[in-house]
């Protein structure tokens, strides 16, 4: 059964067309990888799913469990279970990581009509998850992402994802800027969250990440559309041949 359906999505930013009739279906419990050359619209898709306001959807729809999310604000989508792991997580000076996580979790729970999580329960959840991701207590006390390296920021994204337990997680080039050890830690964190109820979209340039997070499906994006869909072996094929074949296809 499909959890997320993207139908004929057309998106512009500042009058420039980026997504051009994109169709994508993600099955419940699946990890779908999206690969493609620079400028093919992968990050735009990620932002549009999360609800970034700069993008204008001119046509098409995005359904989560059959319900359109396009009119929802980013926080409403998050409460419905959408999570974007940012390619470049921002620093939020002055807001402590723990305060941030707790505010986010409770806001989502409130929106879903659930009670607030208790302090001991919350502390245990964060500490255990942080430990598995190699995030120190000292880092948890710091302001959100402030002074963290690129790899540390990516780990924080996975920590947030683990605490917030989304239904559909979009990982936008989570592998960029990671060394091989960090990549393995992050992938372990992601794999720990795989479940029959949760789907993931993993956006990446490189096949390497998919050795650690093995997808059910691989989609290739070019010029704002999905141009090819296959199994995990498609990633290997792309790694060997490159994207030239797909870049040329749009000449018409």
């Amino acid at each position, binding site marked *: 059964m499909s959890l997320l359906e993207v139908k004929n999505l057309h998106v512009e930013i500042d009058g420039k067309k980026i997504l051009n009739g994109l169709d994508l279906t993600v099955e419940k419990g699946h990890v779908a990888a999206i690969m493609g050359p620079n400028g093919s619209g992968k990050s735009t898709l990620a932002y549009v799913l999360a609800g970034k306001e700069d993008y204008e959807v001119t046509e098409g729809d995005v359904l989560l469990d059959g319900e359109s999310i396009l009119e929802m604000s980013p926080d409403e989508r998050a409460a419905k279970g959408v999570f974007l792991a940012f390619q470049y997580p921002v620093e939020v*000076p002055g807001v402590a990581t723990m305060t941030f996580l707790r505010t986010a979790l409770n806001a989502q729970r409130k929106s879903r009509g659930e009670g607030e999580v208790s302090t001991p329960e919350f502390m245990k959840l964060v500490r255990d998850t942080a430990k598995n991701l190699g995030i120190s207590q000292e880092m948890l006390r710091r302001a959100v992402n402030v002074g963290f390296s690129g790899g540390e920021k990516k780990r924080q994204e996975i920590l947030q994802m683990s605490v917030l337990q989304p239904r559909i997680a979009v990982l936008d080039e989570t592998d960029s800027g990671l060394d091989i050890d960090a990549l393995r830690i992050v992938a372990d964190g992601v794999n720990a969250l795989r479940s029959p109820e949760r789907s993931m979209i993993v956006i990446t340039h490189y096949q390497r990440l998919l050795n650690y997070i093995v997808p059910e499906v691989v989609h290739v994006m070019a010029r704002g559309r999905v141009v090819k869909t296959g199994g995990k072996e498609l990633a290997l094929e792309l790694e060997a041949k490159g994207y030239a074949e797909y870049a040329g296809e749009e000449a018409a």
Partner: protein
Amino acid sequence: MADVTPMKTPAEQALSAAYEAARGSLPGKGGIATLREGAFKRFEERGLPHRRVEDWKYTDLRALMREANPLAPAPDAAAKARAKDAGKILKGLDSRRLVFVDGVFAPEMSDLAPEDGLTIGSLADALASGDALVAEHVGSTFATDDVAVALNTALMGDGAVIRIAKAAELKRPIHLVFATGADKPSANFVRSLVVVDEGAKATIIEEHDSGDAQVNAATELVVGDEAEADYFKVTRARALHVASLLAQIGAKATFNSFAYTSDSSVVRNQNFVRFAGEHSHGGIRGVSLQRGKEHVDTTLLIEHAAAHCESREQFKSVLDDRGHGVFQGKIVVKPHAQKTDAKMMTRSLLLTDEAEADNKPELEIFADDVVCGHGATTSAPDKALKFYLMSRGIPEPEAEALLIQAFIGEVVEEIGNEAIREALMNAAIEWMGSRG
């Protein structure tokens, strides 16, 4: 354009009349009476400052002060009862509260428990009795011809006189609460003198919770050699409020000030600070939170008159609705004040398109071996940060509140006293929670 002296405004006439009427009964004879007369003459010559007076360009008192309220009568029991809940922001703080109602010291509402090295008195008493400390310092801590200070000097009624003896270290902050009890519009002119002697350590808080009373406050602060003084000013004022800090810092001394202003209609906080001795450190900081048509003006004159001193000036304003924030910061480095290290930064966060921030930093440097700098920024809340917070499920108002907290946090975090730091941050969070 010819600078024609305009006719006196009703407020100017009322202030003159108030002085003429009170002249005979204002405390202090001899030198003090002469000081008042000189100050009143300055006001008479110049009138209320207006937009063509450069230092008051953005806070045109002549226009803003439509009328001058009558001087507050001495508070009766009912007035004192009305004033008893004033000073909410720092209510829970473990401090020595000294309460002033309508500008008059209320000893029965104050904590006068004796403490070694601490002398507390009322300015009215000290002026009346010809107190030597007051005679030595009042009017001479920082000489200025500023008209607001002159008006205060002419009409000063009461205030605190505090001396911390050599090497004494106060256990608790001294918390001056300036409350309003009058049930009619009134005005008061409070003047305080704080002398922190050599090597002494003290925290002084002025909390003005002045309701509808017009207030012209001035505080003279003398920080001795090797002394440490922390000075806080917390202001909530629904009528015109002009306050002047006149400070003189000795050698190897530490001086930190912090001004917190919210829920105030028109406030002008002027800080005249002179580093008069070598190797001293100073931090002059503050935060203002404004909405509606609130107007808060922070004006600094920081004079580095001795070598090897370091000062940091750092102010932040959050401007909602049509709030108007003004920052004028002038750092003057005198010719012999070599190795001065002074850095000034002011930032405004504009929450609407209608809010306005005016920043005027100035450096006047007459020494050739110094490090001085200033910066000013004005911006809207960062969209990328807001999206990041919202994408985690935090609704827009809460996301904005977190960003405002982060914005002011940078300067609030500089407050060394943890209890005061937390109380002010909590007050700010409460302010954000009450945003419409």
